């Protein structure tokens, strides 16, 4: 089943042309897609576009379909209903999407209440279990904290836990592990893979870590200046990239065995 279809999608912002430039792709149920590419190339813009979450200053051409239906044919209520429930998003900067003056637990519960008819106690139990999965063992304290009382990576993990809580059919994740140390990152990746294994969740995630992209994805998409310049099976993109840009990305990875920059420059 086709979960997402993008047909010649272009997105502009006020005065900024081609934030996304003629992008087409199709994603099947249960696939994991890793998007890598240039900073500023339109990766976050695409993810927001899929959800119908672009700011008013932007304009889109082309069609985006979710679960077989164009999002332009969905009513505002319909879109709102699938957002969070069927399509969950992990934002690049979770902190910006949280209310700074409301406790995490309160925000988490009111998000769940939008979609779940469960008792308060059941919701809190779900929250704790999800927090534990992203290695936030101190769940009581986390729920009782304001966003500023958590570290960057802790806030990011709260965002991940929230997005995974309702077992979405489609998970859109914008640099979900960029603020996490590698051991916690491994745990979060495991949980995301489990989501697909157990519930067939389709995942599109953006990352700057080529290692993570290679590990998680079935397909890798590469973006540069608004264009999707390469799209292919992970093994192919990693071991025999077609595009010069992909080659240069792969050539820029810094590895533990490399000569250090402080000695080579």
């Amino acid at each position, binding site marked *: 089943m086709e979960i997402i279809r993008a047909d010649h999608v272009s997105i502009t912002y006020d005065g900024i042309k081609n934030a996304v430039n003629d992008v087409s792709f199709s994603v099947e149920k249960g696939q994991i897609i890793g998007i890598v590419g240039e*900073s500023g190339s339109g990766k976050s813009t695409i993810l927001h576009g899929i959800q119908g979450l672009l700011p008013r200053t932007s304009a889109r051409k082309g069609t985006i379909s979710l679960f077989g239906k164009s999002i332009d044919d969905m009513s505002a209520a319909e879109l709102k209903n699938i957002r969070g429930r069927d399509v969950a998003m992990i934002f690049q900067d979770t902190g910006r999407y949280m209310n700074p003056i409301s406790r995490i637990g309160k925000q988490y519960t009111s998000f769940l209440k939008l979609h779940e008819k469960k008792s308060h106690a059941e919701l809190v139990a779900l929250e704790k279990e999800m927090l534990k999965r992203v290695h936030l063992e101190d769940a*009581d304290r986390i729920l009782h904290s304001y966003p500023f009382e958590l570290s960057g990576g802790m806030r*990011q993990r709260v965002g991940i836990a929230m997005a995974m809580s309702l077992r979405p059919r489609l998970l859109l994740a914008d640099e979900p592990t960029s603020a996490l140390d590698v051991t916690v990152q491994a745990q979060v990746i*495991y949980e995301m893979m489990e989501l697909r294994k157990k519930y067939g969740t389709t995942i599109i995630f953006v990352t700057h870590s080529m290692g993570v992209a290679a590990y998680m994805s079935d397909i890798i998409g590469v973006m540069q200046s608004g264009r999707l310049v390469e799209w292919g099976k992970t093994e192919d993109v*990693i071991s025999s990239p077609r595009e010069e840009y992909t080659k*240069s990305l*792969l050539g820029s990875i810094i590895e533990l065995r490399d000569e250090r920059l*402080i000695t080579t420059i």
Partner: protein
Amino acid sequence: MKEPILELSHVSKTFYSSKTGEIPAVSDVDLDVSEGECVGIVGESGCGKSTIARMITRITDVTEGKILLEGQDITKVEERDLKKIYKKIQMVFQDPYSVFSPRMQVGTFLEEGLVFFGISSRSQARKEAETLLHMVELSPELLDRFPHELSGGQLQRVVIGRAISMEPRLIILDEATSALDVSVQKQVLKLLVKLQKRLGLTYLFIGHDLAVVRSISHRIVIMYAGIVVEEIQSERIEQAAAHPYTRKLLESVFSVHDREKKKIVLETLTMQDSGYERQGCPYQKRCPFVYDRCKTEKPDLVDYGNGHKVRCFYFE
């Protein structure tokens, strides 16, 4: 050996939560950074790295301990004398949105700092700002944009540009390149190294990507649960790192060259009110080598020579 430009001695920070009481975010940390050196800090999310950075820049007060900048204890500096410190230390925050006012354009953000610290005249500041953007691989078009009109990585580079422009002695970079693609990241890291060589800048580089931190640092400090568990020369980290947590970090790196899918070994999580043990070694619950002693006694950070220090009974 050069004089340390920055010296932390027995620095601790405790936060309070009405729910769970004390949160020992940083406990008894000693750290020194010499002029022209880059020291990397890595560690678990939530282990106190940003808190250390915030204490050095006086955004957060220390609970205990001293922080010496060129011999002066900055924890005691009066509010009105802080401007002098800010000129010497610049910080690139983990969350770049937090330093921007949402209604301030990129150009104003860059020019304001230059003028405030008397680095350039108002008439020259625009030109300087353009040069700065160029240095961090950004187009001058961005000068007229507002922060929400920039991508994550663009914003991060604007903040790096501003920190460099203040002509500081010390720059603290908190996850400063985490939102950059590998190619731009490498350019920015090279720029930092060049500036360091040319101007003798000193860096404290907080990061999660071990390979990146190793590449740009002379020494690496590894933290867990608010304490320093290991300190090592960066070139030796892969071969010689000894603390079980550091080894675990090294094992958890995903590389494009791993042919076989690495099996993620999950750690048994313990459900308890406090995430960390208060008695004994803080790593005991996750450690594969625990002795009885680890459950009751806190190990010391032992110096094994060559700049290698480890806090672990197993290694002793």
